């Protein structure tokens, strides 16, 4: 995790480039810095590996002040893809990718293995490309090598300055997809600079929109799209994209009210019968006042000898509330692999079960409309 607190940068010639920047880059997330040319994106990024030193405020990496790191050590543990690719033209692809592992004194066999692994990761056949020189690669292939080189020593943080800018739309799209796929595997903290809003919306967990050295707005792509802070943001996103970004309907639209909860007073046998009939493994349980008590588990009913229905509640299942943000719900569902969940209102009254089929149909139609992604 990287944190910037009231960071300022004034260059030697007196230009005040960054003004009171407060930012948080969480571990394992793709953070995209975006904004017009000259707004300070590259400068912000270069503060993080101390290629440029900040002149005010504080920067922390995992709670440690960046000023306390040895800059050279810091850079060896932080991947860096520079704006102009910057491959070493006199070195082979192998040597380029092996740069940082060599600086870190890895042994030869480990480096060999790692280079092969990385070239495969960026979809270049190691045997075919290892011995070539950068000039013998296409622009897109060079950018892939730039990315592979930055990943080489398994840095926890990767800085990428417009890494795909010089590419044709097809290669760019391909590399963006690869980056998102890669990130699922490697889970790095990525700080990514771009000019391209579509790119930002596509890959970002957090978008940071900058203008004249200040952060204008930061948030998830959805937050930025559905709630642009001002006209500048609105203009930067473009009407076209805003139009397609209708907010997702609220959770209450996806509740299936036909499912009746089981009352505490019902007998164990009738509950078993009901579950069997409905072919359910789990069912909501409420008391006389319709207060939600928990989700009954068929497995527990079968295995435990108690006669009190409360004893069969599966404590791992939590109810959703009707006013919860649909994005959070989707994330929760993905993480816990539930197929259906009970929903309660603010007073913990049972409302119904969430209707997954409806939910996914609706999500698909919204994201489908956004198109191209």
């Amino acid at each position, binding site marked *: 995790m990287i944190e910037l607190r009231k960071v300022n940068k004034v260059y030697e010639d007196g230009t005040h480039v960054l003004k009171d920047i407060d930012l948080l880059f969480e571990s394992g997330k793709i953070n995209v810095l975006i904004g017009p040319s000259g707004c300070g994106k590259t400068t912000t990024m270069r503060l993080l590996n101390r290629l440029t030193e900040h002149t005010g405020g504080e920067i922390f990496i995992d709670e440690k002040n960046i000023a306390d790191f040895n800059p050279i050590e810091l850079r060896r543990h932080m991947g860096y893809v520079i704006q102009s*690719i910057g491959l070493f033209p006199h070195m082979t692809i192998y040597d380029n990718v092996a740069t940082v592992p060599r600086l870190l004194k890895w042994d030869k066999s480990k480096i060999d293995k790692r280079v092969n692994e990385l070239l495969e990761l960026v979809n270049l056949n190691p045997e075919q490309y290892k011995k070539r020189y950068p000039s013998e690669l296409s622009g897109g292939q060079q950018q892939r090598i730039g990315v592979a*080189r930055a990943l080489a020593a398994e840095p926890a943080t990767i800085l990428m300055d417009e890494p795909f800018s010089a590419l044709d739309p097809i290669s760019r799209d391909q590399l963006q997809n690869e980056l998102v796929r890669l990130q699922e595997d490697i889970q790095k903290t990525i700080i990514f600079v771009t000019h391209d809003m579509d790119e930002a919306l596509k890959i970002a967990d957090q978008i940071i929109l900058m203008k004249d050295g200040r952060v204008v707005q930061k948030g998830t792509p959805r937050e930025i799209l559905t709630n642009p802070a001002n006209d500048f943001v609105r203009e930067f996103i473009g009407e076209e994209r805003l139009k397609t970004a209708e907010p997702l309907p609220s959770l209450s639209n996806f509740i299936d009210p036909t499912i009746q909860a089981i009352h505490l007073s019902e007998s164990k046998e009738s509950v078993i019968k009901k579950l069997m009939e409905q072919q359910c493994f789990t069912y909501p349980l409420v008391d006389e006042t319709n207060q939600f008590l928990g989700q009954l588990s068929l497995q527990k009913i079968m295995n435990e000898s108690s006669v009190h229905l409360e004893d069969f509640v599966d404590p791992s299942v939590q109810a959703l509330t009707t006013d919860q943000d649909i994005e959070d719900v989707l994330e929760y569902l993905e993480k816990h692999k539930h197929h259906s969940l009970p929903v309660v209102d603010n007073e913990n009254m049972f409302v119904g079960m969430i209707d997954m089929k409806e939910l996914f149909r609706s999500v698909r139609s919204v994201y489908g409309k956004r198109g191209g992604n």
Partner: protein
Amino acid sequence: MEFIRNYFEFWRDRYPSILEYAVQHLIMSALSLVIGILVTIPLAILLTRLKRNFLKSLVFNIANVFQTVPTIAMLALMIPILGIGMKPAVTAMFLYSLLPLLRNTYAGIQSIDSGIVDAAKGMGYNSFQSLIKVELPLAMPYIMSGIRVTSVYIISWVTMAAVIGAGGLGGLIISGIGFNDKNLIFTGTLLAIVLAVATDLLFARFEKSRNRTRRKTI
């Protein structure tokens, strides 16, 4: 025919001393070139690291002044300081070699794409590693062509060194003038040209073989 036979006889009688003059010539040239390289390359590197333009232009102006002093005057000026012989001659040649060597090394390092140097720094090379692993190898074609041009100049200039008793092929020519001996003048001139051309070809081959192993790029 008569001329050619005479010339062969001249060589047969004189070749040990001709060879000695040639060797002196080579030693002086090589010595001033090597000293020049040893001084200018670190100096040029230092200049690329300097932020102050004032110091840079000072150094280049000094080197430039040496370059503009006529050869014969430069050699004459050496006499009160270092006397006569090889020492003042090599010193004078060294001073001449400063500008071309300095300029080429400096330009070579400056010419490197700033993105590449930035990447080297960003990867975590320290300043020395960046110099050895990235900047010097990339500047090498410039540095080599500076050395090549300078060496040819020096071989030609060293001919003048005989004026202050340093020997070399100029010695042959001067005694040729003294004895009115066409053969001596001709031989001295011919050998000076041959040495210069051979050196140039040698460097050309060397550069070519380097380029084959490390392909030139972008």
